[in-house]
């Protein structure tokens, strides 16, 4: 460095980092299709999905105005889904990950699972059983609803989890 230069470069340079920690609020709308699912869950503790007029496939996650595969208008054809099924696949979270909607790290103790409902439709939800030793594919499960009407109105989350059942 030339003489008269303003600062001496230190041996190990100090690097500045500027932190921003502001949550950004949003008002996400369910829209009309997902809203139908919300309404049935809240009012009737029913799980519903819409069905494509062409391929007849039932759209669970999430109801849409267009069938992704046939690319045709879905119309307004709703079916009620059974609330029992078998565990098709599950995993469990060992390491907590940062949840962008909570603003902190979080590990859900309830194992995420793909549940094959009794009408052959796949639902992604979570299991009540937290003891991973007791989990197995093919186990029978049933939806457990939030019983407090005031607390419902959260769509899929109106079902708290799926409980192991003996049959």
């Amino acid at each position, binding site marked *: *460095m*030339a003489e*008269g230069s303003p600062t001496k470069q230190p041996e190990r340079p100090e690097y500045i980092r500027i932190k921003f920690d502001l949550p950004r*609020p949003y*008002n996400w709308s*369910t829209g009309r299709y997902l*809203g*139908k699912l919300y309404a049935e869950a809240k009012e009737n503790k029913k799980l519903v999905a819409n069905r494509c007029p062409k391929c007849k496939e039932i759209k669970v996650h999430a109801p849409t105005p267009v069938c992704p595969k046939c690319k045709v208008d879905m119309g307004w054809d709703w079916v009620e889904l059974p609330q029992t099924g078998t565990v098709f696949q599950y995993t469990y979270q060992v390491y907590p990950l940062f949840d962008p909607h909570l603003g902190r790290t979080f590990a859900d103790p309830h194992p995420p699972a793909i549940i094959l409902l009794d009408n052959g439709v796949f639902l992604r939800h979570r299991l009540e059983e937290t003891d991973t030793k007791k989990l197995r594919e093919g186990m029978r499960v049933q939806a457990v609803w939030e019983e407090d009407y005031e607390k419902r*109105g959260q769509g899929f989350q109106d079902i708290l989890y799926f409980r192991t059942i003996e049959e």
Partner: protein
Amino acid sequence: MAKVTEKLEGMDVWVYHGKIHIPNTYSAGAVGSRFLIELRDNERIMGTRCPTCNLVYVPARSVCKDCFGQLSEWVEVSQQGTLLTYAIAYQPNPVQPSPVPIAYGIVQLDGADTGFVHMLGEVDPKRLKAGMKVEAVFKVKEERQASILDIKYFKPVRKVTKKRVVVKGHH
């Protein structure tokens, strides 16, 4: 707990009032860090000069916008300069460092060829005028954190310094 979902009147549509909250940390890099550290430690405002375009960038930058040259020639500029433009914000937002109204300004410091974007203070907003002389007001040393906010704001110059401080040095 506040209600996060709200049903729209008269239709089966819900609105979820939530947030995205991911903290972000941005590195200033070598050039930006040196600029901020100079504010914090020495109350000096530094620029970098492009020898090709003969432009002094303040705040210091690492690249010339015109010729893409990498800048390594550091220059200290005056803390006084000319107000190029200004605006007074009356609407609050969560990022603003002080309550509204906030006066923003772009100041061309003596010895610089670019404008410095910052706030204006100690002035009646009605008396702001492009072309007026302003000078930097620093926070007290204990409050300075090597950030752009180490400068509190620019205020109108009561007494113009005749001496132009321009110290040049090579990186």
